């Protein structure tokens, strides 16, 4: 071994840094692969995403995503690659165009209609609670008479019964 101790330490540190950098890059690439795979439906287990499925086809699809990312292709280009082969079906989020718009518009419309219906029903309930309660005049007279008999403040109960 040649070189002074600090030089050797420096070299070791540089190696470690390079290793850490490489590892970080690999982790970042993997997380991008999964990010894209999560948006794709697995053709075999159709209720799972390509990120979640462990079947051979999904594994190969993840490999293809990785290869294409390494080749410098963008997320959009990679999604388009799968879309060209499998159609819109492969996308877990339907694209916002054509017949698929129905899904997006309907969801928004349902929220708006629901909120509108709630507002109408709420107003009706509040309005109903503000309406004076219908009381038989004979009953009212009887209560008044009873209250007078109790020698309490004569104004308070009347306000409630009006």
């Amino acid at each position: 071994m040649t070189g002074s101790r600090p030089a050797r330490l420096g070299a070791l540190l540089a190696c470690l840094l390079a290793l850490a950098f490489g590892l970080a890059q690999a982790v970042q690439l993997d997380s991008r692969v999964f990010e894209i795979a999560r948006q794709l439906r697995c053709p075999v287990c159709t209720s799972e995403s390509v990120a979640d499925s462990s079947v051979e086809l999904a594994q190969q699809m993840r490999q293809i995503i990785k290869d294409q990312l390494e080749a410098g292709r963008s997320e959009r280009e990679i999604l388009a690659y799968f879309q060209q082969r499998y159609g819109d079906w492969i996308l877990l989020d339907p694209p916002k165009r054509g017949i698929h718009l129905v899904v997006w518009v309907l969801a928004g419309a349902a929220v708006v209609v629901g909120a509108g219906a709630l507002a109408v029903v709420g107003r009706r309930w509040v309005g109903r609670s503000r309406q004076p309660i219908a009381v038989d005049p004979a009953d009212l007279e009887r209560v008044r008479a009873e209250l007078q008999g109790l020698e309490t403040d004569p104004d308070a109960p009347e306000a409630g019964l009006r």
Partner: protein
Amino acid sequence: MKRQGLLLTVLAVALLGGLFAYGLLRGEPDRDIPTALKGKPAPAFELPVHEHYVNQFGETLSLEELEGRPLVVNFWASWCAPCYDEAPVLQAYWERYEDTGVVFVGVQTQDRGKRAEGRAFIDLFGLSFPNVVDDDSAVSVDWGLFGVPETFFVSRDGVVLDKHVGPVTPQVLDAQLAALLR
């Protein structure tokens, strides 16, 4: 007001019921997914040939080599039960149509590291049309495959005319080959 509400409820229930019945009666939804490749050029491939056919076709077979000939491209795997059902049908039709210029190509796919099992499959049915190995399933994805078996029908000018999901039957092959050779 009350009658209107009742009518609306009945209408909503009828609508949901109708949707439910449609979902139940429309059969297997997977079978209805058309290939996105229909009408588009068949994706190119170059794959290693199973030992049986090396003398005739060389170590690898590419789509380019088969240019100008109508193709029946059948994807199969050694673990796939319906593939065992359709293999004799494919062999019988290959023998019948071989002289018309059409080429049948079998692609063993989604079957990593199972070459020996693939060889046994070929031996079992005495498949005499070329069979290749897509060991990493890359071609399978390139062709937009959902599972096995799937069979593609490619015209002379290399355009995907149609795809059949599931085992092929004589009826399917009769219709598809007639369109292919038209």
